């Protein structure tokens, strides 16, 4: 293959693709990005066999269609160092050459035939969601996934799509995030899937690049895998492929308490700021902050024996009885950060019972308390 490429477009595409590449795979080909040049665009492909991505790059002047397989880390490093507007790219079976005024690189690669196939978005079976809606759903759940967990099912985000309703749920066993949204075009039948965190991160990344375009993302979920097509933005069409997590997601309905009898409403950014301040005097040995709801005031306190104490006050709307309840401040901040509305509702029942942070009917976050001693 041979092409003259817009360097910025190519670099941003390679950067996203590099995130998929398996860092230390025994198969050298999996450490590479595959390039497919045809007509006037180049497709970048990368996979770690669990998750894969296709990135179509336009603004490319393809002189000879063909294939190339180039080690992702070196390729990315070289592109970042160059500052010319355009570069010349040519590949053979063994090597890729990058030409810019004054610079010449030849990177040894592998045979493109060795690269495993990365599925493309199918012609049929897709449902569609507005790109910015899908981004919000993903961002509101992804943070609550388990960072690492022996219970594999938790290390992913549950998707439930029925009719026009899309629900995404994630939990790490200490908190649970549930976000609801609407499809533009719903699927034929109800679909349920657990999408691994890595794929969700990739989806968020691709959507972030295009979300302002008021475009529509398309999704196909089959028994074993999911494909999300993010519509063309600057860099062109992107398709994220992922295998699904094979496991059972906990029954999240049972976890969301129905009997909460106390409710406070408060400013989202005010809560975020107050918790952040109180958290300054916590550490991982005593992570908890104490929330005291009384009358029109919320008092957040923290105390760490060898460090010190903090007390932060903020006005809230609350007329229930006085109540003190401890939480991990990070959990509260994580939830407040993804709420767009100016006000949120905080519902609870008692000191050792879960608390629930709500934004209307679209976002529900259950958070378990800590015993603050």
């Amino acid at each position: 293959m041979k092409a003259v490429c817009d360097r910025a477009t190519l670099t941003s595409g390679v950067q996203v693709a590099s995130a998929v590449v398996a860092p230390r795979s025994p198969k050298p080909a999996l450490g590479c990005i595959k390039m497919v040049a045809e007509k006037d665009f180049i497709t970048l492909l990368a996979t770690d066999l669990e998750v894969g991505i296709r990135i179509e790059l336009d603004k490319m002047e393809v002189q000879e269609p063909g294939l190339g397989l180039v080690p992702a880390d070196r390729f990315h490093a070289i592109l970042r160092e160059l500052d010319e507007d355009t570069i010349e790219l040519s590949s053979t079976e063994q090597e890729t050459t990058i030409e810019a005024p004054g610079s010449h690189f030849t990177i040894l690669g592998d045979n493109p035939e060795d690269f495993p196939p990365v599925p493309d978005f199918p012609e049929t079976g897709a449902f569609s969601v507005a790109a910015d809606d899908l981004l919000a759903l993903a961002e509101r759940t992804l943070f609550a996934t388990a960072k690492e967990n022996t219970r594999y099912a938790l290390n992913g985000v549950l998707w439930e799509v029925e009719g026009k309703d899309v629900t995404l749920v994630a939990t790490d066993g200490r908190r649970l995030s549930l976000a609801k949204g609407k499809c533009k075009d719903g699927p034929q039948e109800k679909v349920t899937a657990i999408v691994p965190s890595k794929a969700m991160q990739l989806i968020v990344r691709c959507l972030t690049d295009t979300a302002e375009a008021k475009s529509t993302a398309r999704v196909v979920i089959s028994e074993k895998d999911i494909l999300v097509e993010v519509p063309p933005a600057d860099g062109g069409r992107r398709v994220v492929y992922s295998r699904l997590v094979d496991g059972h997601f906990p029954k999240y309905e049972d976890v969301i308490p129905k009997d909460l009898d106390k409710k406070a409403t408060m400013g989202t950014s005010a809560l975020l700021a107050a918790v952040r301040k109180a958290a300054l005097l916590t550490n991982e040995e005593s992570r908890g902050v104490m929330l005291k709801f009384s009358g029109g005031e919320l008092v957040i306190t923290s105390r760490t024996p060898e460090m010190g104490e903090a007390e932060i006050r903020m006005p809230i709307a609350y007329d229930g009885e006085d109540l003190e309840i401890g939480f991990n401040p990070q959990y509260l901040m994580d939830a407040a950060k993804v709420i767009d509305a100016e006000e949120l509702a905080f519902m609870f029942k008692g000191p050792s019972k879960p608390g629930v942070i709500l934004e209307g009917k679209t976002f529900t976050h259950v958070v378990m308390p800590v015993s603050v001693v």
Partner: protein
Amino acid sequence: MTTAAIHILPEQLVNQIAAGEVVERPASVVKELLENAIDAQASRIVLEVEEAGKKLIRVSDDGAGIPADQAPLALASHATSKIGSRDDLEGITSLGFRGEALASIASVADVRLLTRTADALEATEVTVSGGRADAPRPASGPVGTTVEVRNLFRYVPVRRKFLKTDATEMGHITDQAARIALAYPAVHLTVTHNGRSVYQLPPSESVRERVGAFFGGDLAASLIEVTSEEPGGRLWGLVGPPHVDRATSVMQYLFINGRYVRDRGLLHALREAYRGLLEGRRQPVAFLFLTIPPERVDVNVHPTKIEVRLRDAHLLYGQVLATVRERLLGPGLTPSLPAPAAAGAGEPAARTAAEAESAEAASDRDERVRRAMADFLHSPAAANQRRLPLAGKTALQGGFARKADSDAHRGAPATSPVRVQPARWALRPGTSDRSRLGETAPHGEAFDEAAPGSRAIQIHNTYLVAETEDGILIVDQHALHERVLFEEIMKRLEAGPLQSQRLLMPVTVALSDREMAAVEAYRESLGRLGLEVEPLGPRDVGIQAFPSLLERGDPEGTLRDFLAWVQAVDSPPTPRQVLEELAHVAACHAAVKAGDPLKTEEIEALLAHREAAHMAATCPHGRPTALILRKTDLEKQFGRDYAAGSKAAATDEILPY
């Protein structure tokens, strides 16, 4: 049936009965004779043994000797030169004093005493056979005393039957010799068995050398010196690092004023000093020497004086515990990697000599090696940790040696611009949790000035390798992280129950009946750790809450391992043991595992903890967390030590012969 009349026992029978207490086996004779030789100020002692002492025990010394007229008395009961009055008993400075030993021995064996004082013209010989002493007669012999004990227990055949095999009895004899040899390293001691030399110990200043002679050079080299001076007494000793442990307490040697004793209290203090550092019932290795005013210790408690009574037992207990514990928890206690000895070297004596020499080694040489080390850790091959498992070996050998050589050619500058100290792992307040390790990456000043790259690398996703002041530190990442978490949990537990994070869904764990009972029995301890466990059914429990300190911990694994331990222990554990075990299992499950790739910041944070925590060099299971490959050993391996200290070495290195 007639009743026997009461009568006074004949003297020999009295002595035979007394011998029952003092002379238990050949080794007891050896002990008494060696102690006499020491009390006689001998500088040279020869112990000859035949048939493990059953046939012959002969101890010859070059001590003061006994004047001819007193020689017969030496073998009589309650005859001694060591004390004279009641007051002397209050401040015993000699090993013996009771005046019983020789008489007891003479009552159960044939004894020949040959002695001569420095100003006597000839020696005196006294023999005792069957309890009857012959008249002393002049004989020829050197200054000093020789005591021959033949046919031990000839007159008490019952006792003879109870003797064990020669190997066992000789083992006891060797142990007695070791006790004397360790306490009096300045005394030349020779031991032979059936005419063969067993030990040939020239006078030495070093207890470590003597330990090496009896217990092996590796053990001796591993020991750590402890010392403290308090009003109650002076403590000096060599103790084993926690990984050099034993199944029993036989390797615990405690000497008070040069006397080997078994004092339960002080040995307990020693064991306490290792609390949390040794696995299960493992016992430490220690050679402790206490010097206290003679009047503060009553040795007249037990015929063999193996037990003593201490006036300030609690003070000494505290001194032993604090001195050893502080040393063990102090910085720099890291087992040294035993590099294969270079040809011709490797004896304990050589090792200590090398250590002594290294202190004096020319500083420019130290600087050169330091620079080479710093450069190695900066080199691209080292920085690229992903590739290191493949390229590491050549990078180490090639990169290090080449760099050092080129520095040598250039002539090393007097001061090195890169002087790396362990403290470079910037101390940052507690970031223990695995996820946090990465989040709080160091920004900064501490790193920028001299070390733009990583100071440490990870190899095989299991070990962290870092430069230290005098070598290379290799850390087991899991063991270290586990240790860090364990220390934090224990520190926290002292203040009160751990903060506990409630779980959204209880973690259900199926248990046996015994395990269910154990959960019930230890519910309070579990609660203190922050582990809230409720029964969900006859054989199911749910973990409702877990310590928030261990955000990434594994509740089920922690509970299961704890219950397994509860069922494995023989006797009911103390509450503290329970909490420690809980902290162990919880830390183990929450710590990074071998095989987990770590980010550079995580590596640095973990190593920073090691320095900040001043922790012991073992994980809670007693495994070492770190090894040091000493610079001196590296030099040995690369053949850089043969002319250490000489500037000529730099050029010689190119053509080494």
